[in-house]
C-alpha cells in the first residue's frame, strides 16, 4: 500500500493524477489499493486522469485543523466528479459552486504536491 501511495505522490509531483483501472470489470478507483474494490481483481492498470471534471460539493474552510493551514484561511475544498467517473477531493477556488466544470492542477504544500481544481477556462 505504501508503495502505491508513494507512486501516486510521485505522479502528483509531476502534475499527474493517478488512478487504478480494473482490467477485469472496468471499475475506476481514485483511492489506490492494489486490488479492485468492486470485483477483487488484482489486474489493474495505472492510469492518469485527463484533468476535467464537475464540482459535486464545495466548502470554504474558515477554521483550520493544523498550523500549516491556519495561515491559509480561508481556503476551499471540493469533491469533483472526474470525467473518468471517480470522485476525488482537492483544494479548490474559493468561489466555485456544485455543477461547475473544473480542471485540475497541482500546487505545492509543504513537501507535498496537492490536487487543486479551478473553473475550467474552456466552454463546453
Amino acid at each position, binding site marked *: 500500500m505504501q508503495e502505491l*501511495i508513494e507512486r*501516486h505522490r510521485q505522479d502528483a509531483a509531476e502534475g499527474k493524477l493517478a488512478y487504478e483501472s480494473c482490467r477485469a470489470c472496468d471499475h475506476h478507483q*481514485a*483511492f489506490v489499493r492494489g486490488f479492485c474494490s468492486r470485483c477483487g481483481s488484482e489486474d489493474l492498470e495505472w492510469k492518469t486522469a485527463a484533468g476535467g471534471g464537475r464540482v*459535486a*460539493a*464545495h*466548502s*470554504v*474552510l*474558515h*477554521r*483550520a*485543523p*493544523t498550523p*500549516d*493551514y491556519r495561515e*491559509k484561511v*480561508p*481556503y476551499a*475544498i*471540493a*469533491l469533483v466528479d472526474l470525467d473518468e467517473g471517480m*470522485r*476525488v*477531493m*482537492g*483544494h479548490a477556488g474559493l468561489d466555485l*459552486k*456544485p*455543477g461547475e466544470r473544473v480542471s485540475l492542477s497541482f500546487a505545492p*504544500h509543504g513537501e*507535498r504536491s*496537492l*490536487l487543486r481544481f479551478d473553473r475550467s477556462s474552456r466552454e463546453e
Partner: protein
Amino acid sequence: MKQAWIAGVGDTPFGRLEGRDSLDLMSQAAAAALADGGFERGEIDGLLTGYSTAMPHLMLATLFAEHFGLSPRYCHAIQLGGATGCALVMLAKLLVESGQCRNVLVVAGENRLTNPGGRDSAIQTLAQVGHAEFEVPFGATIPGYYGLLASAYMGAYDISEEDLAEMAVLMRRNAGRHPGAQLRDPITVADVMASRPIASPLKLMDCCPISDGGVAVLVTADEGRAKGVRLAGAGQAHTHQHISAAPSLDAFGGATAAQQAFEQTGLSVSEVQVAGVYDSFTITVTILLEEIGFAARGQAAALARQGHFEPDGPLPLNTHGGLLSFGHSGVAGGMAHLVEVVRQMSGGAGERQIDRPLDVGFVHGDGGVLSSHVSLVLTRE
C-alpha cells in the same frame, strides 16, 4: 426469544465539567443508571463501552469494569464514531435477546472539552476520520466534510442557509427546558446567520459544541424491573467511511438502517411519536430526517417552522436539545438522544414531560461523515 427492556438511564450535565476525567464521568452516569433501575453492581453481567478521545485506551471496557467494580461475563468496547452509542445499545439488545446476558450496562463519557489539549486537540483527532492520504492532507475538518455534503444536498433540494438555521433554533429552544444542557440561551435564525463562518455553508451555530459529559443505559431481560420501554427494533447500514467514497450524496444509509428497525417491529416511520435524531450539524439532522422519511426531501425546515418538531407538535424531536445545544461529548452525546426518548416515553422527563402517551420512539445515530448508521425503535408496552 427473550425481549430487551430499558431498566435505567443516567447522565451527567453536559458542558464544562472541570477536573473530571473519562472514568469519573462514566462512573457518575453508570451509578445514576443503576440507581434509576434499582440495580446493584453484582447484577450486571454485561458491560459495553465506546471509546474516549480524551482517554485513549486499548481496553476501555475492562478498565471501566475494574474501576467501577464490575465483573461482567461479557465486556468490550465498540468504535463507530457518533453511531457508537446506538450500536452499543443495539448489541445490548441482541445480547439480552439471545440469552447471553441478563443485565447489560452501556456507558460512555469523556471530558472532551476540558481535557488537556482541549478543543484544538479534539478537532485535529476528529478530522482523522477523513482519508489519511486523499482527504486529511487538504486541511479538511469534520465541519469541512459536512460543509461539502451540505453544499451538494442544499443545491439538490433547494434548501437555504436559513432553512438549516431552523434546526439550530429548535434545538436551542429545547435545551432551554433541560437543566443539564450546555447551551441554553435562546437564539434566532438571524443569530445563526450572523454567527461566524466555519466551513461554508455551515456557521458556528450550525455546529454542535464540544462538551464534557457522560451517559449510561441499562438494558435488561427482566420486564418486571424495566421502565415499560422495550428495545423493539434495531438496524444498521454502512456504505462508506470517507465522504469522497460515498456512493451517493443523498442516500447515506440512514433509511436502510431505519427500515430494518421498523420491519422488525411491524411499525412504520409515520407511527413514531417521539424521536431523537443525530444532529452533529444542522445539515446532519436535516438530511437524516428527510432520508429516513420524517420529512419529504427539502421539507424538514418547513415542517420545523410549522411547529411539527416541537414538544407539542406531531413529532417531538431531540427534546433535550440534541448535540447542537445539549452538547456533544463523543459517544455519550449520541446516547443522550436515547436517554431523552426513554424519559419521555416513561414519564420521567420532569418539566419537559410531553403531556400525552408516547408509545413509539425512534433514535438514530450516525458516525463519520454520515458513514455508519444505527437506528433503534422503542415501544411502550
